[in-house]
């Protein structure tokens, strides 16, 4: 008996030349999903350690929560990360709607068009959000 040659996963992936719309949608959906999970835990960790109830300092705007948020907002990198987060979230939502349609069996022939549409819409929303995120004065 001849033994057969095992090609392994790395080689398999490297030889792929043509990804189609559905495959890209799947890859982006996985990627954005993991980014959102990562953000969720960071979000919980940062905010749960920044909660301190002290009415007097809250009144003066110098309590832990306010100073944490304004401290973060004063960093340019955080502003850019916010734009990125919006992009990731918007794509995940729009592609999620697309997948819902696919699961319901609606418009499966135009699944590639709906993927491109969700990409374009994501791009438009992100561009429109740039003034809001980057506009404010860095403290």
């Amino acid at each position, binding site marked *: 008996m*001849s*033994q*057969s*040659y*095992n*090609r392994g*996963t790395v080689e*398999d992936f490297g*030889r*792929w*030349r*043509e990804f*189609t*719309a*559905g*495959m890209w*949608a*799947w890859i982006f959906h996985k990627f954005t999903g993991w980014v959102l999970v990562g953000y969720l835990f960071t979000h919980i960790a940062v905010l749960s350690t920044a909660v301190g109830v002290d009415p007097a300092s809250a009144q003066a705007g110098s309590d832990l929560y306010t100073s944490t948020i304004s401290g973060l907002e004063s960093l340019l990198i955080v502003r850019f990360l916010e734009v990125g987060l919006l992009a990731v979230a918007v794509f995940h939502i729009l592609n999620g709607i697309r*997948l819902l349609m*696919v*699961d319901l*069996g609606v418009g*499966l*022939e135009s*699944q*590639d068009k709906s993927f491109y549409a969700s990409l374009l819409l994501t791009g438009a929303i992100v561009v429109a959000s740039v003034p809001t995120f980057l506009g404010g004065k860095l403290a």
Partner: protein
Amino acid sequence: MSTQIEQQETETEADEETEPEVESPGDRRRAQRDERQAQEQAQREVEEETLDDEDTITLKVFRYDPEVEGKQEPRFDDFRVPFHKGMTILDALIYARDHYDSSLTFRHSCRQAVCGSDALFVNGRQRLGCKTQISELDDPIRIEPLPHQEVVKDLVVDMEHFYDQMEAVEPYFDADETPDDKLEEQRQTRENREKVKMSTRCIWCGACMSSCNIAAGDNEYLGPAAINKAYRFAMDEREGENRKQERLRIIEQEHGVWRCQTQFSCTEVCPKDIPLTEHIQELKREAVKNNLKFW
């Protein structure tokens, strides 16, 4: 093709000449082989030189054979093949095999996209060799065996697992009631025929299974072709209720329809244009409906 005739001639000559000597048969065969290879090489060089540069194409073909020393390490061989209008990948491979290297191994049979033997990985995508026009592809054309299946030799992959999956969904009719008259046909409405029409076109080429990277990571996943087969019978109105329930139980298991993550890769590569993802999605809904009970 001409090489074969020459080969016979040299064999008979050599037999007569070397009989009185104490040379072993192995030596003689080796000598003959060397001579033949040299001849073939010379012939190939001549043929390649005479080819006009403008209407030739270059094939880069995956070569591997565990039984031949020197081919155990996978490599790519280049073949320059004359191009003519309407030429398919399979035509080019047949030309390369017949004129250059008779050991080039690939499956083919009907040459008209019916038998499903020659699904190949051409320029980074699963295609049916006999259905793919060379004029549509970029030169050089890279031909490899189907990914995610084990390579037996050159372009031949082991299809056993694929066939097992196809049979796992019990792809046959088991009608509850047949017509009283034995000669009577089991009739189907036109609408129902239209519903299953596309799913009946499967030629078992395995391109979809190879393109699905869920199937690549999960060997137990039935795969698009097998689920399509299940669809073909589950959606047919002539199918008996018991068999339908049994088949639904098979496909709604963990490694059944629910593994599909709607990448649409299978639908893209299917040479018979079967809307595989649509059928898988419909079976998902069917499986849910079958299990939902509100009373």
